[in-house]
């Protein structure tokens, strides 16, 4: 088995595009949640979202016009994040140069919903209007489930396995886990790992119909995403993409690559939709087993974890998540690790949430800070016993071993542990 390290990072998030700006946004506790006129026009109860704002000049500088013509939002986010990650890992990319096939690198880029904007805005209206002939050649490549990974694979000429994982809101973390297993087993030197989710009010409308989206803060979008809060009223839908380069330690050291962190291990499972688990709710035993298996896979104890990037969506699941973490880590409330919700800043990116939050996790680990978990000044009564673990403002923190947890519809769970890369590691 090979040690696996993170040698590249890339992100398109609702509160920032690009790693430097995203790091700054995390430190500032900057919200990326904004009012969405289209959701208002469609008379959704929730009219706010974490919708990435991307400078068109960045898109034009990254992709050829012939490429831009066939991209939807989930492909754009995946492509921008992957190119940033690729360059951050020390590889070259020029928008008008076709590289040779890289047989040593693959990609697992997940998605939860995928190209709903293509389906809702073009495929269905044009088909229903009898205009299928005029849709052009680029519909399937935008709405197929594997669109984000296929797009990234073609951009970068990846010759390893190129695939998409789809496990609802666990997609991002599970994608990273699958890529980790591939590199750890020595099957590939490197894998781009992450996920993306497009921005589509039609994708969000289904959740609105379930009454699980925030609807009380349409006039104050930055207050809408309230994980861990007594006044949490549902999650804020979001979009974006995050990509990490996972690489064998040998390959990274041979190349002299910068190492952001080490991946120690992880686990994915399901609660079977039994014993409290349903299509939309987690079986507590499944969650706890996943966390314990993650600790075992990473060869660490619960008390070794000094920071958790929670799933924490601002629904009734938040207190249950904390209870499951307390049980699975086997720690008391007064020794509970630091924990925050990146969703408080950027909303819930669905299939992209795990990857964007893993990027946030690695940045906090690498740079020694935890970002504010905003909008939970009125802490939920069932989590008050871990109040000291929840940063209301960004603060410095020497982190060593950190846990990312993600849960999704289908009662699926995915967790992963990252370790600080430093002088001790480099010696052996």
């Amino acid at each position, binding site marked *: 088995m090979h040690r696996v390290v993170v040698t590249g990072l890339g992100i398109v998030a609702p509160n920032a595009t690009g790693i430097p700006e995203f790091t700054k946004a995390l430190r500032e506790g900057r919200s990326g949640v904004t009012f969405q006129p289209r959701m208002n026009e469609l008379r959704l109860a929730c009219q706010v979202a974490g919708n990435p704002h991307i400078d068109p000049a960045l898109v034009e500088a990254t992709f*050829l*016009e*012939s490429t831009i*013509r066939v991209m939807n939002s989930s492909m754009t986010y995946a492509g921008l994040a992957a190119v940033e990650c690729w360059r951050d890992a020390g590889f070259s990319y020029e*928008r*008008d*140069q*076709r590289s040779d096939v890289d047989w040593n690198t693959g990609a697992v880029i997940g998605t939860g919903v995928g190209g709903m904007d293509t389906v809702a805005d073009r495929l269905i209206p044009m088909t229903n209007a009898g205009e299928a002939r*005029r849709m*052009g*050649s*680029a519909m399937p490549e935008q709405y197929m489930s594997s669109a984000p990974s296929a797009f990234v694979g073609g951009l970068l000429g990846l010759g390893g396995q190129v695939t998409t994982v789809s496990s609802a809101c666990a997609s991002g973390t599970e994608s990273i886990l699958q890529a980790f297993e591939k590199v750890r087993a020595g099957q590939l030197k490197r894998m781009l790992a992450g996920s993306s989710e497009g921005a589509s009010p039609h994708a969000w409308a289904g959740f609105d119909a379930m009454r699980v989206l925030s609807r009380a803060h349409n006039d104050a979008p930055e207050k809408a995403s309230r994980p861990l809060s007594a006044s949490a009223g549902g999650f804020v839908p979001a979009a974006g993409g995050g990509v990490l380069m996972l690489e064998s330690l040998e390959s990274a050291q041979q190349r002299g690559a910068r190492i952001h962190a080490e991946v120690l291990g992880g686990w994915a499972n399901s609660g079977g939709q039994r014993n409290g688990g349903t299509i939309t709710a987690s079986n507590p035993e499944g969650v706890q087993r996943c966390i314990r298996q993650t600790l075992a896979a990473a060869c660490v104890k619960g008390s070794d974890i000094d920071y958790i990037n929670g799933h924490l969506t601002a629904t009734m699941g938040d207190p249950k998540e904390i209870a499951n973490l307390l049980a699975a880590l086997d720690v008391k409330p007064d020794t509970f690790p630091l924990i925050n919700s990146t969703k408080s800043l950027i909303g819930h990116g669905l299939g992209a949430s795990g990857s964007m939050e893993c990027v946030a996790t690695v940045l906090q680990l690498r740079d020694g800070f935890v970002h504010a978990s905003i909008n939970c000044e009125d802490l939920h009564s069932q989590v008050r016993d871990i109040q000291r673990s929840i940063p209301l403002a960004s603060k410095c923190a020497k982190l060593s071993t950190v846990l990312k947890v993600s849960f999704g519809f289908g009662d699926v769970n995915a967790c992963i542990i990252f370790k600080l890369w430093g002088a001790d590691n480099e010696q052996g």
Partner: protein
Amino acid sequence: MNRDEIREGVLKLLAKFAGRGAKKTDLSEATTLDELDVNSARMIDIVLDLEDQFGVTIDDSNTPKLKTVGDLVSLVDNLVNAQKA
């Protein structure tokens, strides 16, 4: 509209479809779509854009025969002139 004008319009349109390995200079009617690194699946989009730009209707049976800039120019030229007649 004469052939030179049609050629100019076709080349401008094809620039939007050129891929990352595209030949960028000395473009002529002899230039192949392969040299412009045009993804073959995009011929459908090129045909739709040609229809919009030149106000013609191109039968799908013509698409497989289009290999060079000159093929596109000739096809459009013939259709435009047929409309005049």
